[in-house]
Protein backbone atom coordinates (compact mmCIF):
# COMPACT_ATOMS: atom_id res chain seq x y z
CA UNK A 1 0.00 0.00 0.00
CA UNK A 2 2.99 2.28 0.10
CA UNK A 3 2.39 3.17 -3.51
CA UNK A 4 -0.71 4.98 -2.36
CA UNK A 5 1.36 8.04 -1.51
CA UNK A 6 -0.40 11.27 -2.49
CA UNK A 7 -0.41 11.91 -6.19
CA UNK A 8 1.06 15.26 -7.00
CA UNK A 9 -0.96 16.79 -9.75
CA UNK A 10 0.44 19.82 -11.54
CA UNK A 11 -2.52 22.03 -12.39
CA UNK A 12 -4.21 20.93 -15.57
CA UNK A 13 -1.99 17.92 -16.08
CA UNK A 14 -5.05 15.85 -16.86
CA UNK A 15 -6.06 18.08 -19.76
CA UNK A 16 -6.23 16.20 -22.99
CA UNK A 17 -3.62 16.32 -25.67
CA UNK A 18 -0.46 18.26 -26.15
CA UNK A 19 -0.94 20.63 -23.24
CA UNK A 20 -0.37 17.76 -20.90
CA UNK A 21 2.90 16.85 -22.59
CA UNK A 22 4.15 20.38 -22.46
CA UNK A 23 3.30 20.82 -18.82
CA UNK A 24 4.35 17.42 -17.68
CA UNK A 25 7.85 17.95 -19.00
CA UNK A 26 8.19 20.00 -15.86
CA UNK A 27 9.13 17.61 -13.11
CA UNK A 28 6.11 16.87 -10.99
CA UNK A 29 7.27 16.06 -7.52
CA UNK A 30 9.17 12.96 -6.52
CA UNK A 31 7.43 9.67 -7.09
CA UNK A 32 8.17 7.05 -4.50
CA UNK A 33 10.57 4.18 -5.07
CA UNK A 34 7.85 1.49 -4.80
CA UNK A 35 5.92 3.05 -7.69
CA UNK A 36 9.08 2.95 -9.76
CA UNK A 37 9.17 -0.82 -9.31
CA UNK A 38 6.08 -0.91 -11.50
CA UNK A 39 8.18 0.38 -14.37
CA UNK A 40 10.71 -2.42 -14.10
CA UNK A 41 8.94 -5.20 -16.06
CA UNK A 42 8.40 -3.02 -19.12
CA UNK A 43 11.90 -1.57 -18.89
CA UNK A 44 13.31 -5.10 -18.77
CA UNK A 45 11.19 -6.08 -21.75
CA UNK A 46 12.42 -3.11 -23.79
CA UNK A 47 16.00 -3.82 -22.78
CA UNK A 48 15.81 -7.48 -23.77
CA UNK A 49 13.84 -7.26 -27.00
CA UNK A 50 14.51 -3.77 -28.33
CA UNK A 51 17.80 -2.45 -26.98
CA UNK A 52 19.72 -5.73 -26.92
CA UNK A 53 18.82 -6.84 -30.49
CA UNK A 54 19.64 -3.39 -31.84
CA UNK A 55 22.99 -3.39 -30.05
CA UNK A 56 23.68 -6.95 -31.22
CA UNK A 57 22.74 -6.12 -34.79
CA UNK A 58 24.82 -2.98 -35.03
CA UNK A 59 27.59 -4.30 -32.79
CA UNK A 60 28.07 -7.51 -34.74
CA UNK A 61 29.09 -5.31 -37.65
CA UNK A 62 32.24 -4.59 -35.67
CA UNK A 63 32.77 -8.12 -34.36
CA UNK A 64 35.00 -10.91 -35.54
CA UNK A 65 36.27 -14.12 -33.99
CA UNK A 66 39.18 -12.26 -32.44
CA UNK A 67 37.19 -9.30 -31.19
CA UNK A 68 36.86 -5.86 -32.63
CA UNK A 69 37.31 -5.35 -36.34
CA UNK A 70 36.49 -2.78 -38.98
CA UNK A 71 36.64 -5.36 -41.77
CA UNK A 72 32.87 -5.75 -42.05
CA UNK A 73 32.25 -2.03 -42.00
CA UNK A 74 34.94 -1.59 -44.64
CA UNK A 75 33.15 -4.26 -46.66
CA UNK A 76 30.33 -1.73 -46.97
CA UNK A 77 32.58 0.03 -49.48
CA UNK A 78 32.45 -3.01 -51.74
CA UNK A 79 31.04 -1.97 -55.14
CA UNK A 80 28.30 -4.61 -54.98
CA UNK A 81 27.12 -3.39 -51.59
CA UNK A 82 27.38 0.25 -52.58
CA UNK A 83 25.19 -0.41 -55.60
CA UNK A 84 22.70 -2.32 -53.42
CA UNK A 85 22.43 0.68 -51.13
CA UNK A 86 22.02 2.90 -54.18
CA UNK A 87 19.25 0.60 -55.44
CA UNK A 88 17.48 0.71 -52.08
CA UNK A 89 17.76 4.47 -51.73
CA UNK A 90 16.75 5.03 -55.36
CA UNK A 91 13.73 2.74 -55.13
CA UNK A 92 12.63 4.30 -51.82
CA UNK A 93 13.10 7.86 -53.11
CA UNK A 94 11.27 7.19 -56.39
CA UNK A 95 8.28 5.48 -54.79
CA UNK A 96 8.20 8.07 -51.97
CA UNK A 97 8.03 10.97 -54.45
CA UNK A 98 5.39 9.33 -56.67
CA UNK A 99 3.42 8.16 -53.65
CA UNK A 100 3.61 11.59 -52.00
CA UNK A 101 2.39 13.41 -55.12
CA UNK A 102 -0.50 10.99 -55.76
CA UNK A 103 -1.41 10.93 -52.08
CA UNK A 104 -1.34 14.73 -51.81
CA UNK A 105 -3.58 14.88 -54.89
CA UNK A 106 -6.03 12.55 -53.19
CA UNK A 107 -5.95 14.72 -50.05
CA UNK A 108 -6.61 17.79 -52.22
CA UNK A 109 -9.60 16.06 -53.79
CA UNK A 110 -10.95 15.37 -50.30
CA UNK A 111 -10.50 18.98 -49.17
CA UNK A 112 -13.80 20.34 -47.97
CA UNK A 113 -15.23 16.95 -47.09
CA UNK A 114 -16.13 17.31 -43.43
CA UNK A 115 -13.97 15.72 -40.75
CA UNK A 116 -16.67 13.21 -39.85
CA UNK A 117 -18.16 12.71 -43.30
CA UNK A 118 -18.96 9.22 -44.46
CA UNK A 119 -16.87 9.17 -47.62
CA UNK A 120 -13.87 10.52 -45.76
CA UNK A 121 -14.24 7.87 -43.07
CA UNK A 122 -14.29 5.21 -45.76
CA UNK A 123 -11.19 6.60 -47.46
CA UNK A 124 -9.40 6.70 -44.11
CA UNK A 125 -10.34 3.09 -43.30
CA UNK A 126 -9.34 1.89 -46.77
CA UNK A 127 -6.05 3.78 -46.57
CA UNK A 128 -5.36 2.23 -43.20
CA UNK A 129 -5.85 -1.24 -44.62
CA UNK A 130 -3.88 -0.67 -47.80
CA UNK A 131 -0.98 1.00 -45.97
CA UNK A 132 -0.77 -2.13 -43.80
CA UNK A 133 -1.28 -4.33 -46.84
CA UNK A 134 2.45 -4.49 -47.49
CA UNK A 135 4.28 -7.69 -47.28
CA UNK A 136 3.75 -11.02 -48.86
CA UNK A 137 0.11 -10.49 -49.80
CA UNK A 138 0.97 -7.46 -51.87
CA UNK A 139 3.44 -9.54 -53.85
CA UNK A 140 0.66 -12.03 -54.66
CA UNK A 141 -1.67 -9.18 -55.63
CA UNK A 142 0.83 -7.95 -58.19
CA UNK A 143 1.65 -11.41 -59.46
CA UNK A 144 -2.08 -11.72 -60.21
CA UNK A 145 -2.05 -8.29 -61.87
CA UNK A 146 1.18 -7.86 -63.81
CA UNK A 147 2.75 -11.27 -63.31
CA UNK A 148 3.53 -13.45 -66.31
CA UNK A 149 -0.10 -14.67 -66.24
CA UNK A 150 -1.55 -11.55 -64.63
CA UNK A 151 -4.83 -10.00 -65.67
CA UNK A 152 -3.30 -6.76 -66.95
CA UNK A 153 -0.43 -8.59 -68.66
CA UNK A 154 -2.82 -10.85 -70.57
CA UNK A 155 -5.18 -7.99 -71.38
CA UNK A 156 -2.38 -5.85 -72.83
CA UNK A 157 -1.09 -8.82 -74.80
CA UNK A 158 -4.41 -9.99 -76.19
CA UNK A 159 -5.96 -6.60 -76.85
CA UNK A 160 -3.05 -4.44 -77.92
CA UNK A 161 -0.40 -7.02 -78.72
CA UNK A 162 1.88 -5.40 -76.14
CA UNK A 163 4.15 -7.85 -74.36
CA UNK A 164 5.27 -6.02 -71.21
CA UNK A 165 7.82 -8.75 -70.56
CA UNK A 166 9.45 -8.56 -73.99
CA UNK A 167 12.65 -7.44 -72.28
CA UNK A 168 12.56 -10.13 -69.61
CA UNK A 169 10.55 -10.85 -66.50
CA UNK A 170 11.28 -7.52 -64.81
CA UNK A 171 8.52 -8.06 -62.28
CA UNK A 172 10.85 -10.38 -60.36
CA UNK A 173 13.62 -7.80 -60.37
CA UNK A 174 14.09 -4.29 -59.02
CA UNK A 175 11.66 -2.55 -61.46
CA UNK A 176 8.93 -4.98 -60.40
CA UNK A 177 9.01 -3.47 -56.90
CA UNK A 178 8.07 0.04 -58.01
CA UNK A 179 4.34 -0.51 -58.55
CA UNK A 180 3.76 -2.62 -55.40
CA UNK A 181 5.67 -0.06 -53.32
CA UNK A 182 3.60 2.81 -54.73
CA UNK A 183 0.54 0.77 -53.81
CA UNK A 184 1.34 1.05 -50.11
CA UNK A 185 2.96 4.49 -50.27
CA UNK A 186 -0.11 6.38 -51.53
CA UNK A 187 -2.40 5.25 -48.67
CA UNK A 188 0.33 6.04 -46.13
CA UNK A 189 0.62 9.53 -47.65
CA UNK A 190 -3.14 10.00 -47.34
CA UNK A 191 -3.05 9.00 -43.66
CA UNK A 192 -0.13 11.26 -42.77
CA UNK A 193 -0.89 14.25 -45.00
CA UNK A 194 -4.67 14.56 -44.65
CA UNK A 195 -4.53 16.17 -41.18
CA UNK A 196 -2.18 18.88 -42.47
CA UNK A 197 -4.39 19.52 -45.47
CA UNK A 198 -7.49 19.79 -43.26
CA UNK A 199 -5.72 22.32 -41.06
CA UNK A 200 -5.76 24.87 -43.90
CA UNK A 201 -8.17 27.47 -42.62
CA UNK A 202 -11.03 28.62 -44.86
CA UNK A 203 -10.53 32.08 -43.35
CA UNK A 204 -7.17 32.29 -45.06
CA UNK A 205 -8.84 31.69 -48.40
CA UNK A 206 -11.48 34.29 -47.60
CA UNK A 207 -8.83 36.81 -46.56
CA UNK A 208 -6.95 36.09 -49.76
CA UNK A 209 -10.07 36.57 -51.88
CA UNK A 210 -11.19 39.72 -50.12
CA UNK A 211 -7.75 41.22 -50.64
CA UNK A 212 -8.11 40.58 -54.36
CA UNK A 213 -6.09 37.37 -54.53
CA UNK A 214 -6.89 34.56 -56.92
CA UNK A 215 -7.31 30.88 -56.25
CA UNK A 216 -3.98 30.13 -57.93
CA UNK A 217 -2.45 32.92 -55.92
CA UNK A 218 -3.78 31.35 -52.74
CA UNK A 219 -2.07 28.06 -53.45
CA UNK A 220 1.15 29.68 -54.62
CA UNK A 221 1.56 32.15 -51.76
CA UNK A 222 -0.35 30.60 -48.85
CA UNK A 223 -1.34 26.97 -49.34
CA UNK A 224 1.90 25.55 -50.62
CA UNK A 225 4.26 27.40 -48.25
CA UNK A 226 2.11 26.37 -45.29
CA UNK A 227 1.88 22.75 -46.42
CA UNK A 228 5.50 22.40 -47.58
CA UNK A 229 6.93 21.25 -44.21
CA UNK A 230 4.14 18.71 -43.71
CA UNK A 231 4.59 17.45 -47.25
CA UNK A 232 8.33 17.06 -46.73
CA UNK A 233 7.79 15.30 -43.39
CA UNK A 234 5.37 12.83 -44.98
CA UNK A 235 7.78 12.32 -47.86
CA UNK A 236 10.55 11.39 -45.41
CA UNK A 237 8.22 8.99 -43.62
CA UNK A 238 7.35 7.35 -46.96
CA UNK A 239 11.04 7.04 -47.78
CA UNK A 240 11.73 5.36 -44.42
CA UNK A 241 8.75 3.09 -44.95
CA UNK A 242 9.98 1.87 -48.33
CA UNK A 243 13.59 1.65 -47.23
CA UNK A 244 12.81 -0.68 -44.32
CA UNK A 245 10.29 -2.79 -46.23
CA UNK A 246 11.34 -6.40 -46.70
CA UNK A 247 8.46 -8.84 -47.15
CA UNK A 248 7.15 -7.74 -50.56
CA UNK A 249 10.60 -7.86 -52.06
CA UNK A 250 11.37 -11.19 -50.39
CA UNK A 251 8.22 -12.79 -51.80
CA UNK A 252 8.55 -11.23 -55.24
CA UNK A 253 12.27 -11.29 -55.96
CA UNK A 254 13.08 -14.91 -55.31
CA UNK A 255 16.60 -14.64 -56.68
CA UNK A 256 19.30 -12.07 -56.27
CA UNK A 257 19.58 -9.39 -53.64
CA UNK A 258 18.84 -6.14 -55.37
CA UNK A 259 18.05 -4.17 -52.23
CA UNK A 260 19.70 -4.02 -48.81
CA UNK A 261 17.10 -6.04 -46.85
CA UNK A 262 17.47 -8.86 -49.38
CA UNK A 263 21.23 -8.63 -49.07
CA UNK A 264 20.86 -9.05 -45.31
CA UNK A 265 18.74 -12.14 -45.96
CA UNK A 266 21.50 -13.54 -48.17
CA UNK A 267 24.14 -12.72 -45.59
CA UNK A 268 22.09 -14.36 -42.82
CA UNK A 269 21.23 -17.54 -44.68
CA UNK A 270 24.01 -18.09 -47.15
CA UNK A 271 26.78 -20.51 -46.38
CA UNK A 272 28.97 -19.42 -49.25
CA UNK A 273 29.87 -16.27 -47.37
CA UNK A 274 31.65 -18.14 -44.61
CA UNK A 275 33.90 -15.91 -42.62
CA UNK A 276 31.58 -13.09 -43.45
CA UNK A 277 28.82 -13.95 -41.01
CA UNK A 278 29.03 -10.49 -39.52
CA UNK A 279 28.37 -8.84 -42.86
CA UNK A 280 24.67 -8.87 -41.95
CA UNK A 281 25.59 -6.74 -38.95
CA UNK A 282 27.49 -4.27 -41.08
CA UNK A 283 24.58 -4.04 -43.52
CA UNK A 284 22.21 -3.56 -40.59
CA UNK A 285 24.48 -0.78 -39.34
CA UNK A 286 24.29 0.87 -42.77
CA UNK A 287 20.49 0.67 -42.70
CA UNK A 288 20.34 2.10 -39.19
CA UNK A 289 22.49 5.04 -40.28
CA UNK A 290 20.23 5.80 -43.26
CA UNK A 291 17.12 5.42 -41.08
CA UNK A 292 18.58 7.61 -38.33
CA UNK A 293 19.34 10.39 -40.82
CA UNK A 294 15.86 10.11 -42.36
CA UNK A 295 14.01 10.08 -39.04
CA UNK A 296 16.23 12.86 -37.67
CA UNK A 297 15.32 15.06 -40.63
CA UNK A 298 11.70 14.01 -40.14
CA UNK A 299 11.74 15.17 -36.52
CA UNK A 300 13.25 18.53 -37.56
CA UNK A 301 10.76 19.14 -40.38
CA UNK A 302 7.82 17.87 -38.34
CA UNK A 303 8.53 20.38 -35.59
CA UNK A 304 8.22 23.13 -38.15
CA UNK A 305 5.12 21.58 -39.69
CA UNK A 306 3.37 21.38 -36.32
CA UNK A 307 3.38 25.17 -36.12
CA UNK A 308 0.39 25.42 -38.47
CA UNK A 309 -1.65 22.68 -36.87
CA UNK A 310 -2.34 24.44 -33.59
Amino acid at each position, binding site marked *: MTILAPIESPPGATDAGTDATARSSRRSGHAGVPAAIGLVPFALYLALFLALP*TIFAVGSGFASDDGFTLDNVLALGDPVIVSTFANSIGLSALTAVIGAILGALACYAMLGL*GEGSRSRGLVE*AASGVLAQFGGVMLAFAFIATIGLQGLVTLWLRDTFGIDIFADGAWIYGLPGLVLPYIYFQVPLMIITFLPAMSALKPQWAEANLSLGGTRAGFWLHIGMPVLAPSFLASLLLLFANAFSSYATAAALASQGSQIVPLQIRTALTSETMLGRENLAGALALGMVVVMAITMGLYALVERRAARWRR
Partner: protein
Amino acid sequence: MSARGIGPSRATRWVVAVVLIGLFLVPIVSMIEYTTRDGSGGHSLVNWLALFDPANESKYRPIWVGLGNSLVLALVSVAIVLFLLAPTMVLISLRFPGLRRIFEFLVLLPISIPAIVLVVGLAPIYLVIGRTFGTGIWTLAFAYGITVLPFAYRAIQASIDATDMKTLAEAARTLGAGWPTILGRVLAPNLRPGLLAASLISVAVVLGEFTIASLLNRQNLQTALVVVGKQDPYASVILSLLALAFAFVLLVVIGRAGAARRTSKGRS
Protein backbone atom coordinates in the same frame (compact mmCIF):
# COMPACT_ATOMS: atom_id res chain seq x y z
CA MET B 1 -17.20 24.94 -42.18
CA SER B 2 -16.61 24.13 -45.78
CA ALA B 3 -13.31 25.10 -47.31
CA ARG B 4 -14.94 27.05 -50.11
CA GLY B 5 -12.47 28.99 -52.17
CA ILE B 6 -9.63 26.50 -51.77
CA GLY B 7 -11.38 23.19 -52.29
CA PRO B 8 -11.40 21.60 -55.74
CA SER B 9 -14.36 21.91 -58.04
CA ARG B 10 -16.86 19.07 -58.11
CA ALA B 11 -15.51 17.89 -61.46
CA THR B 12 -11.88 17.83 -60.31
CA ARG B 13 -12.86 15.96 -57.17
CA TRP B 14 -14.64 13.29 -59.16
CA VAL B 15 -11.89 12.90 -61.75
CA VAL B 16 -9.22 12.42 -59.08
CA ALA B 17 -11.44 10.06 -57.07
CA VAL B 18 -12.38 7.91 -60.05
CA VAL B 19 -8.82 7.67 -61.40
CA LEU B 20 -7.21 6.87 -58.04
CA ILE B 21 -9.88 4.45 -56.86
CA GLY B 22 -9.79 2.80 -60.28
CA LEU B 23 -6.03 2.34 -60.13
CA PHE B 24 -6.22 0.93 -56.62
CA LEU B 25 -8.97 -1.49 -57.55
CA VAL B 26 -7.02 -3.00 -60.47
CA PRO B 27 -4.87 -5.36 -58.35
CA ILE B 28 -7.86 -6.39 -56.23
CA VAL B 29 -10.01 -7.10 -59.27
CA SER B 30 -7.06 -8.95 -60.79
CA MET B 31 -6.77 -11.10 -57.67
CA ILE B 32 -10.46 -12.00 -57.82
CA GLU B 33 -10.24 -12.81 -61.53
CA TYR B 34 -7.06 -14.81 -60.99
CA THR B 35 -8.58 -16.99 -58.27
CA THR B 36 -11.60 -17.83 -60.45
CA ARG B 37 -9.59 -19.19 -63.39
CA ASP B 38 -10.40 -22.86 -63.90
CA GLY B 39 -7.29 -23.75 -65.85
CA SER B 40 -9.02 -24.17 -69.21
CA GLY B 41 -9.60 -20.53 -70.01
CA GLY B 42 -12.96 -20.29 -68.26
CA HIS B 43 -13.94 -19.07 -64.85
CA SER B 44 -15.34 -20.98 -61.91
CA LEU B 45 -15.01 -21.30 -58.17
CA VAL B 46 -12.97 -24.48 -58.49
CA ASN B 47 -9.89 -22.98 -56.77
CA TRP B 48 -11.93 -21.66 -53.88
CA LEU B 49 -13.60 -25.02 -53.35
CA ALA B 50 -10.27 -26.84 -53.63
CA LEU B 51 -8.94 -24.84 -50.69
CA PHE B 52 -11.54 -26.34 -48.38
CA ASP B 53 -11.59 -29.78 -49.99
CA PRO B 54 -10.50 -32.45 -47.48
CA ALA B 55 -8.68 -34.25 -50.30
CA ASN B 56 -6.18 -31.39 -50.46
CA GLU B 57 -5.66 -31.29 -46.74
CA SER B 58 -2.00 -32.26 -46.80
CA LYS B 59 -1.24 -29.81 -49.59
CA TYR B 60 -2.68 -26.88 -47.67
CA ARG B 61 -1.71 -28.04 -44.20
CA PRO B 62 1.10 -25.44 -43.88
CA ILE B 63 -1.51 -22.70 -44.25
CA TRP B 64 -3.72 -23.99 -41.45
CA VAL B 65 -0.70 -24.62 -39.22
CA GLY B 66 0.58 -21.12 -40.03
CA LEU B 67 -2.82 -19.59 -39.36
CA GLY B 68 -3.00 -21.38 -36.00
CA ASN B 69 0.49 -20.18 -35.10
CA SER B 70 -0.35 -16.62 -36.13
CA LEU B 71 -3.48 -16.66 -33.97
CA VAL B 72 -1.47 -17.85 -30.95
CA LEU B 73 1.06 -15.09 -31.62
CA ALA B 74 -1.71 -12.51 -31.96
CA LEU B 75 -3.14 -13.62 -28.61
CA VAL B 76 0.17 -13.44 -26.75
CA SER B 77 1.05 -10.09 -28.37
CA VAL B 78 -2.30 -8.65 -27.29
CA ALA B 79 -1.60 -9.96 -23.79
CA ILE B 80 1.74 -8.11 -23.82
CA VAL B 81 -0.04 -4.93 -24.92
CA LEU B 82 -2.83 -5.20 -22.34
CA PHE B 83 -0.89 -6.48 -19.33
CA LEU B 84 2.55 -4.97 -19.84
CA LEU B 85 2.30 -1.85 -22.02
CA ALA B 86 -1.07 -0.49 -20.82
CA PRO B 87 -0.38 -0.68 -17.04
CA THR B 88 3.02 0.92 -17.60
CA MET B 89 1.40 3.75 -19.54
CA VAL B 90 -1.15 4.27 -16.76
CA LEU B 91 1.65 4.33 -14.20
CA ILE B 92 3.61 6.85 -16.27
CA SER B 93 0.63 9.12 -16.68
CA LEU B 94 -0.33 8.97 -12.99
CA ARG B 95 3.01 8.96 -11.24
CA PHE B 96 5.79 9.82 -13.66
CA PRO B 97 4.44 12.42 -16.10
CA GLY B 98 8.00 13.72 -16.39
CA LEU B 99 9.01 10.46 -18.04
CA ARG B 100 6.38 10.70 -20.75
CA ARG B 101 8.63 12.24 -23.39
CA ILE B 102 11.40 9.67 -23.07
CA PHE B 103 8.83 6.86 -22.81
CA GLU B 104 7.16 8.05 -26.01
CA PHE B 105 10.52 8.20 -27.76
CA LEU B 106 11.32 4.63 -26.70
CA VAL B 107 8.03 3.06 -27.72
CA LEU B 108 7.98 4.86 -31.08
CA LEU B 109 11.55 3.76 -31.75
CA PRO B 110 10.56 0.47 -33.46
CA ILE B 111 9.21 2.56 -36.37
CA SER B 112 12.76 3.70 -37.09
CA ILE B 113 14.37 0.30 -36.66
CA PRO B 114 13.53 -1.91 -39.64
CA ALA B 115 12.36 -5.40 -38.72
CA ILE B 116 15.16 -6.81 -40.86
CA VAL B 117 17.70 -5.05 -38.63
CA LEU B 118 15.97 -6.29 -35.49
CA VAL B 119 16.15 -9.84 -36.86
CA VAL B 120 19.93 -9.70 -37.12
CA GLY B 121 20.10 -8.99 -33.37
CA LEU B 122 17.19 -11.24 -32.43
CA ALA B 123 18.82 -14.34 -33.92
CA PRO B 124 21.34 -14.83 -31.07
CA ILE B 125 18.68 -13.93 -28.47
CA TYR B 126 16.31 -16.56 -29.84
CA LEU B 127 19.09 -19.13 -29.68
CA VAL B 128 19.16 -18.57 -25.92
CA ILE B 129 15.36 -18.49 -25.68
CA GLY B 130 15.19 -21.72 -27.64
CA ARG B 131 17.42 -23.38 -25.08
CA THR B 132 15.53 -22.11 -22.03
CA PHE B 133 11.87 -21.93 -23.10
CA GLY B 134 11.98 -24.35 -26.03
CA THR B 135 11.14 -23.42 -29.59
CA GLY B 136 7.41 -23.02 -29.07
CA ILE B 137 5.89 -20.55 -31.49
CA TRP B 138 4.58 -18.32 -28.71
CA THR B 139 8.08 -17.09 -27.82
CA LEU B 140 8.09 -15.17 -31.10
CA ALA B 141 5.40 -12.93 -29.57
CA PHE B 142 8.11 -11.22 -27.48
CA ALA B 143 9.52 -9.83 -30.72
CA TYR B 144 6.07 -9.05 -32.10
CA GLY B 145 5.19 -7.14 -28.94
CA ILE B 146 8.01 -4.76 -29.88
CA THR B 147 6.84 -4.32 -33.48
CA VAL B 148 3.28 -3.45 -32.38
CA LEU B 149 4.42 -1.00 -29.67
CA PRO B 150 4.15 2.23 -31.70
CA PHE B 151 0.65 1.41 -32.97
CA ALA B 152 -0.63 0.19 -29.63
CA TYR B 153 0.92 3.15 -27.81
CA ARG B 154 -0.84 5.70 -30.00
CA ALA B 155 -4.22 4.04 -29.61
CA ILE B 156 -3.96 3.75 -25.82
CA GLN B 157 -2.45 7.21 -25.32
CA ALA B 158 -5.40 8.77 -27.17
CA SER B 159 -7.72 7.21 -24.60
CA ILE B 160 -5.48 8.21 -21.69
CA ASP B 161 -5.44 11.80 -22.91
CA ALA B 162 -9.22 11.78 -23.12
CA THR B 163 -9.66 10.44 -19.59
CA ASP B 164 -9.25 12.27 -16.32
CA MET B 165 -7.04 9.54 -14.91
CA LYS B 166 -5.92 11.29 -11.73
CA THR B 167 -9.39 12.22 -10.56
CA LEU B 168 -10.67 8.72 -11.23
CA ALA B 169 -7.74 7.11 -9.45
CA GLU B 170 -7.99 9.48 -6.47
CA ALA B 171 -11.73 9.01 -6.19
CA ALA B 172 -11.36 5.24 -6.26
CA ARG B 173 -8.61 5.37 -3.65
CA THR B 174 -10.64 7.62 -1.41
CA LEU B 175 -13.36 4.98 -1.54
CA GLY B 176 -10.84 2.39 -0.42
CA ALA B 177 -9.95 0.64 -3.66
CA GLY B 178 -6.55 -0.99 -4.00
CA TRP B 179 -4.43 -0.65 -7.12
CA PRO B 180 -5.61 -3.86 -8.79
CA THR B 181 -9.20 -2.67 -8.44
CA ILE B 182 -8.33 0.81 -9.68
CA LEU B 183 -6.54 -0.57 -12.72
CA GLY B 184 -8.97 -3.31 -13.60
CA ARG B 185 -12.34 -1.94 -12.58
CA VAL B 186 -11.99 1.84 -12.74
CA LEU B 187 -9.39 2.82 -15.29
CA ALA B 188 -9.57 -0.07 -17.77
CA PRO B 189 -13.28 0.43 -18.53
CA ASN B 190 -12.61 4.11 -19.18
CA LEU B 191 -9.73 3.28 -21.49
CA ARG B 192 -11.67 0.57 -23.27
CA PRO B 193 -11.85 2.21 -26.71
CA GLY B 194 -8.08 2.69 -26.74
CA LEU B 195 -7.39 -0.79 -25.40
CA LEU B 196 -9.73 -2.29 -27.98
CA ALA B 197 -8.17 -0.34 -30.85
CA ALA B 198 -4.67 -1.25 -29.64
CA SER B 199 -5.60 -4.94 -29.49
CA LEU B 200 -7.18 -4.98 -32.94
CA ILE B 201 -4.31 -3.17 -34.61
CA SER B 202 -1.89 -5.53 -32.86
CA VAL B 203 -3.81 -8.48 -34.29
CA ALA B 204 -3.66 -6.93 -37.76
CA VAL B 205 0.08 -6.29 -37.53
CA VAL B 206 0.87 -9.76 -36.17
CA LEU B 207 -1.23 -11.53 -38.81
CA GLY B 208 0.67 -9.64 -41.50
CA GLU B 209 4.16 -10.17 -40.09
CA PHE B 210 6.60 -12.03 -42.32
CA THR B 211 10.15 -10.73 -41.86
CA ILE B 212 10.92 -11.93 -38.35
CA ALA B 213 9.19 -15.31 -38.62
CA SER B 214 10.74 -16.05 -41.97
CA LEU B 215 14.32 -15.28 -40.96
CA LEU B 216 14.07 -16.98 -37.58
CA ASN B 217 12.70 -20.08 -39.34
CA ARG B 218 9.31 -20.05 -37.66
CA GLN B 219 6.07 -20.82 -39.45
CA ASN B 220 3.27 -18.29 -39.41
CA LEU B 221 0.48 -17.37 -41.81
CA GLN B 222 2.68 -15.27 -44.08
CA THR B 223 5.56 -17.73 -44.36
CA ALA B 224 2.99 -20.45 -45.12
CA LEU B 225 1.53 -18.31 -47.91
CA VAL B 226 4.96 -18.14 -49.54
CA VAL B 227 5.58 -21.87 -49.13
CA VAL B 228 2.21 -22.89 -50.54
CA GLY B 229 2.32 -20.15 -53.19
CA LYS B 230 5.35 -21.81 -54.76
CA GLN B 231 3.23 -24.86 -55.75
CA ASP B 232 -0.25 -23.40 -55.85
CA PRO B 233 -0.40 -19.63 -56.39
CA TYR B 234 -4.22 -19.72 -56.43
CA ALA B 235 -4.45 -20.68 -52.75
CA SER B 236 -2.09 -17.88 -51.75
CA VAL B 237 -3.99 -15.28 -53.74
CA ILE B 238 -7.30 -16.45 -52.26
CA LEU B 239 -5.92 -16.20 -48.73
CA SER B 240 -4.41 -12.79 -49.45
CA LEU B 241 -7.86 -11.63 -50.55
CA LEU B 242 -9.47 -13.04 -47.42
CA ALA B 243 -6.80 -11.43 -45.25
CA LEU B 244 -7.42 -8.10 -46.96
CA ALA B 245 -11.15 -8.36 -46.31
CA PHE B 246 -10.48 -9.33 -42.70
CA ALA B 247 -8.13 -6.37 -42.21
CA PHE B 248 -10.74 -4.03 -43.66
CA VAL B 249 -13.35 -5.32 -41.20
CA LEU B 250 -10.86 -4.91 -38.32
CA LEU B 251 -10.12 -1.33 -39.36
CA VAL B 252 -13.81 -0.47 -39.63
CA VAL B 253 -14.31 -1.84 -36.10
CA ILE B 254 -11.37 0.26 -34.89
CA GLY B 255 -12.97 3.26 -36.60
CA ARG B 256 -16.23 2.55 -34.77
CA ALA B 257 -14.34 2.31 -31.46
CA GLY B 258 -12.76 5.67 -32.23
CA ALA B 259 -16.15 7.18 -33.04
CA ALA B 260 -17.57 5.81 -29.80
CA ARG B 261 -14.70 7.43 -27.96
CA ARG B 262 -15.39 10.78 -29.57
CA THR B 263 -19.08 10.71 -28.69
CA SER B 264 -18.46 9.62 -25.10
CA LYS B 265 -15.93 12.42 -24.80
CA GLY B 266 -18.52 14.82 -26.14
CA ARG B 267 -20.98 13.73 -23.49
CA SER B 268 -18.69 14.34 -20.54
